[in-house]
């Protein structure tokens, strides 16, 4: 009966419309259910979850999982580090991407073609894991914030998106006439480009921020001091460590079930900020994909 309110008034849906609607609802359930299940399992009695009694609604609500996580000092450390890395990494990436994206959008200057090749080539060939690791070691970046935020600081795809945006939105005639009036590229960038480019700043900031928030690999290879671990690394630790525990046959079942409860809660805690912000930021993400798509 819910469907009735969903169609546009005045037009009667055909059989195919209804079929498409049913397929959509099914897809929606398949996609959303795992996320929903994690959420309800994170607040349900772990023994009931284990027994398969929790399907649609939380049962015997308990916040023990969240309490355990909040009591774990690693959570706070992880959150602090993740926020730090996300803020610093995003700021660095955005500044680099905006400045170089603007420069590359300028119609023509000496060496532009070669600089483009220089940038694009990094997309199709790389030194690989070990040479990069050795470089970071030689730079003494191991166990510092630089190990987390520098590799991947400029995403070529983000750079192309930014360049394309400027090419399409900043009038080169305006730049040329501003120059005739003695305006420098710097002034033009600060006074004309930045104030009119809120959208692209939002788009690439969000892309970089999500990447940094969710990233774990740089931290995994370049950090070994646990006080510097981001949240995702603790998430991995908790999941793996308890996995080993749960393989111990002597372990009492309820302990194993409780360990699962903590895992559910940990997944929620680590994913919630991005997922909560995402519906509001959705249009920027989509915008970014569209600008990038123009370039194919």
């Amino acid at each position, binding site marked *: 009966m819910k469907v009735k309110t*969903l169609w*546009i008034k005045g037009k009667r*849906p*055909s059989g*195919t419309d209804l079929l*498409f*609607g049913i397929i*959509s609802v099914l*897809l*929606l359930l398949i*996609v959303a*259910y*795992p*996320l929903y*299940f994690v959420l309800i399992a994170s607040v349900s009695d772990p023994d009931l*979850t284990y027994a398969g009694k*929790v399907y649609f609604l939380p049962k015997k609500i308990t916040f023990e999982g969240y309490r355990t996580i909040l009591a774990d000092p690693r959570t706070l450390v992880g959150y602090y580090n993740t926020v730090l890395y996300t803020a610093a990494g995003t700021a660095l990436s955005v*500044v*680099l991407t905006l*400045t*170089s994206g*603007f*420069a*590359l959008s300028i119609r*023509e200057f*000496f060496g532009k073609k070669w600089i483009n090749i*220089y940038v694009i080539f990094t997309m*199709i*060939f*790389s030194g*690989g*894991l*070990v*040479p*990069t690791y*050795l*470089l970071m070691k030689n730079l003494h970046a191991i166990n510092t914030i630089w190990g987390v935020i*520098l590799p991947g*600081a*400029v995403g070529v795809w983000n750079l192309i998106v930014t360049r394309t945006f400027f090419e399409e939105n900043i009038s080169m005639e305006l730049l040329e006439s501003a*120059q005739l009036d003695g305006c*420098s*590229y710097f002034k033009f960038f600060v006074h004309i480009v930045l104030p009119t480019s809120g959208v692209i700043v939002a788009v690439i900031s969000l892309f970089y921020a999500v990447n940094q928030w*969710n*990233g*774990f690999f740089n931290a995994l*290879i370049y950090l070994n001091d646990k006080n510097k671990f981001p949240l*995702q*690394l603790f*998430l*991995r630790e908790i999941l793996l460590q308890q*996995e080993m525990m749960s393989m111990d046959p002597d372990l009492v079942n309820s302990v194993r079930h409780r360990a*699962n409860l903590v895992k559910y809660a940990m*997944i929620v805690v680590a994913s919630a900020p991005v*997922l909560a912000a*995402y*519906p509001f930021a959705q249009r920027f*993400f989509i915008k970014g994909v569209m600008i990038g*798509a123009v370039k*194919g």
Partner: protein
Amino acid sequence: MEKGETIKRRRGWKTRWKRDYQIYLFLAPTLLYFLIYCYIPMGGIQIAFREFTPKLGIWKSPWVGLGQFARFFQSYQFKIIISNTLKISLMNLLLGFPMPVFLALLLNQLKYTKLKKVLQTATYAPHFISIPAVVGMLVIMLSPGGGMLYNLIDWFSGGKAGIPMGSAPGFSLIFVISEIWQHAGWDAIIYIATLTSVSPDLYEAAEIDGAGKIQKILYIDIPAILPTAVILLIMNSGRIMSVGFEKVLLMQNAMNIEASEIISTYVYKIGLIGMEFSYSAAIGLFNSLINFFLIVVVNQIAKKGANIKLF
């Protein structure tokens, strides 16, 4: 354009430099970044041809020619790793590619606008979940007591589900399905964007001719997204050898390793855990070269066949 060129010609390089030097200042930090983080490591590739020891460093360790490569080709893991890599990535391409297309076609023709919005938001959402979180979900939900999903699998397999994550045969399927769950919605955006640019006149004309939904999809929508789909298919096939490293790494365990060891995870283990830097760099270089070759070939094909240049 013409005006710009005459101005350019009239001015000497000195005036141009005076005007344009700031462009290079804008570019300098980023170019320096690429130099340090992309080009210097490329120089470090030479350790693949040496026997690297930390004491002697990159430049002084003795040359061993192609010895590291020979060792890899002769090792018993070589065949397993290559076939795992190909199996996982080909499966990912074949099963993963059609889903976003299907989803976009469905969404485009969906009449219930609210449902459409909700479905879009819901299918994009998993793209924003971190890899550790997704793997965590897989690990718990695919083991006994993991809820409806596990019970369904158990029921369909007649109570013999065991622990799917701990078995080699199911590994690639679990990987691919979870990839589809996570990214199909997001990957559909580009097709949806293409479909919204289809002129409404076409649909109207089709309706007058008595075309139904299915005909519209077959004769308007699919032709409209075909070029985009071809480009993406070509691009994705260029990335075959670099499939989902981080996720595979986290999904690995002692029980599924025979099916889950791929080139990139092997490089990681040999190099950063086993500390055999030269051997690992050689395997990494082997992988990079295949990738490079694939992308260049694919780009050529796209240029010739569809007159599309990817870069």
